């Protein structure tokens, strides 16, 4: 059974690491739904959030193959955990004066923001789960979408503790320490999931 799995991957912040990760995923025949990469609290580490569409066993294989890459520090399959996984959408909507009010109401429900106003269009920013973004796009579709740009998801697991903490490396010990406390849940972000 295939599903989208969400991998949170910490990698060395080195040139070429994105190429290595993407190339490995392609070579092993996995399909990437989305991939986002950016800096973390630690300058030497970047976090990649990868959504791959695979079966459970394939996901395990993808995870193991990724771990083998020398620049990959840890991988956490956070699919199904209580995580916050957000995408960012920027969308230019056809919004002539007569329809603006309606559109602005929709934006408010989705806690979106208008970031640019032009005579006939608005650029709107919305963040949230993939589902929320999909819903928003569906709802504004009838007004006319001129252009859209959408990021991949970035995600963290809920709770007090960092899921993965880099510890000082000692030969023979694990490089990672997972927090013992189970991820504490907060109210799920359901904003705008109408």
């Amino acid at each position, binding site marked *: 059974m295939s599903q989208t799995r969400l991998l949170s991957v910490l*990698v*060395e912040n080195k*040139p*070429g690491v994105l*190429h*290595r990760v993407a*190339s*490995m995923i392609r*070579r092993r025949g996995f399909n990437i739904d989305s991939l986002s990469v950016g800096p973390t609290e630690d300058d030497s580490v970047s976090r990649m959030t990868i959504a791959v569409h695979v079966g459970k*066993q394939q996901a*395990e*294989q993808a995870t*193991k*193959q990724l*771990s*083998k*890459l*020398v*620049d*990959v*520090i840890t991988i956490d399959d956070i699919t199904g955990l209580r995580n916050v996984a957000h995408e960012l959408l920027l969308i230019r909507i056809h919004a002539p004066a007569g329809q603006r009010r309606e559109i602005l109401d929709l934006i408010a429900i989705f806690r979106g923001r208008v970031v640019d106003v032009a005579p006939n269009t608005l650029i709107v920013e919305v963040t949230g789960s993939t589902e929320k973004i999909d819903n928003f796009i569906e709802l504004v579709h009838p007004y006319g979408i001129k252009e859209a740009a959408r990021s991949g998801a970035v995600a963290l697991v809920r709770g007090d503790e960092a899921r993965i903490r*880099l510890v000082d*490396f*000692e*030969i*023979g010990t*694990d*490089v990672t320490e997972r927090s013992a406390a189970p991820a504490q849940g907060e109210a799920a972000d359901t904003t705008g999931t109408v």
Partner: protein
Amino acid sequence: MAATAARTDQTPEPARRLTGAQIALESLIREGTETIFGYPGGANLWLYRYLPEYPQLRHILVRHEQGGAHAADGFARSKRGSVGVVFATSGPGALNLVTGLATAYLDSVPVIAITGQVATTAIGTDSFQESDVIGSTMSVVKHSYLITRAEDIAPTIKEAFHVARTGRPGPVLIDFPKDLQAAVTEFNYPEEPIRLRSFPPPPRPDAARLRRIAQLIREAKRPVILAGRGVIISGAEETLLELSHKANIPVGWTLLGTGAYPVTDPLALQMVGFMGAGYTNKAVCDADVLIMIGMRCDDRVTTKLDSFAPRVEHLIHIDIDPAEIGKNVVPHVSVVADADTALRELIPMVEPKREHEWLTQIDQWREEHPVRFLNHNGLLQPQEVLEEMYSRSQDEAIVLADVGQNQIWAALWFRYSRPGLFLNSGGTGTMGYAFPASMGAKMANPDKTVFCVTGEGGFVMNMQEMATMVENNIAVKVLVLNNRSLGMVRQFQDDFYEGVRSAVDLSFTPDLVKLGDAFGMKAMTTDKLEEVGPMLDAALAHDGPVLMNFDIDPLANVYPIVPLGKGMLDFVEAE
């Protein structure tokens, strides 16, 4: 060559400010390198400029970079703990390494490739002989580095060796821009061991799982062990022997695992799988507990996946690479660890036992399905040549085989009474591997006999290395099993592709004796069985490389073989 830039950097002690090229060479010495296979060109000339200053580094000028990569591979495979080293220039030189790196990668061989690159300032401009070597080799190396600062040279080389030899070994490429080869900086070789948070050392075997395996062995009625190249890499041959003897477990092996277990041992099975022995396939298919050690279990082993070990109740997999566990077959119990460590810790937990019925059954299968050949036509058979060769091996010669029929024949007739080295490109099946790799093996083992068994197709793919072999008097004894066709492909076409022979005729192979003469290599030929032995004796008596051509039965086939798409028990045998 304008050497002015370097001349000014010659101040030796006390500051030990060296050029990047010198730093690289000194770093190689620190890592224990003694032999380098390589080829110069515009982007690595600073390395070659300084090479003569380090006589402790023996450089072998190969005649093609692919030959260099395979030679470094053969060197590393044949000398435990060593790392093969190959140099190439940028662009075409580096790209000529790709097949050799892929070969080493799939068979887990530690090789360091140092490729010249255009100057850092020219990277990305499509300058002369620039190519994206990191990108081109990414999927065929364990890791790679582009050096971007002179002060990174020594730490990068140290780390590259660490990565190449640690855990599951593999090739590592270092792309070294030529301006940094000339740049001068202080040389400090890092003394501390490398610790990489993203590359932890292999885990220790899990004791609870080992206990579970010991229990499963105790309960097993029909146990079988399969050994892969991981056993050889980790030096676990003796430990494996001890385990199998303690619990009387029959042992078979993969093509790459050939040599891991003494073939004449009463508990020995044979090679398993696609072209494995019928009795081994039968044993695997009937086993209730199957223990796979240091192997990938690829499709050459399993044949049709669902035909593999159908009666197994407990599949056990021990491998150092967690990604191999569950990749092709999903085990019930797995241990991620170095094979030797795991087996050493397992043995005390295992109780002596003997499943008489099972062993009797296996003996019966061994008799019913022997690995054999028949000579129907009086023509020289490849196995006859190999029997003569192996009778002169003292069970300790290093044997390399190329790819094709010759490879399988050489593997199935390798029947040493102790563990031994049988080297071949089992993973990528690279034709042209054996001949240059055998140079590396001989360089690494000057006191051992090295036989290189090859088809004429594979031989001509890298025959330029005859020049290297003769120049350096690398005394490999080469046996070309010449069937005047791409034999394995011909056999496939005859049996699996409706009998249409297409593009397999090699009657235009050059006269190998004349060719040997042209290169100054002692060369002999025969098509008569009675001449084979004397020819081998003459070859062994000759102090230098020898090329022996054997005109064999052009229609000799590999048996047993499982027809394409069929299962393990559908093997077809010689008749």
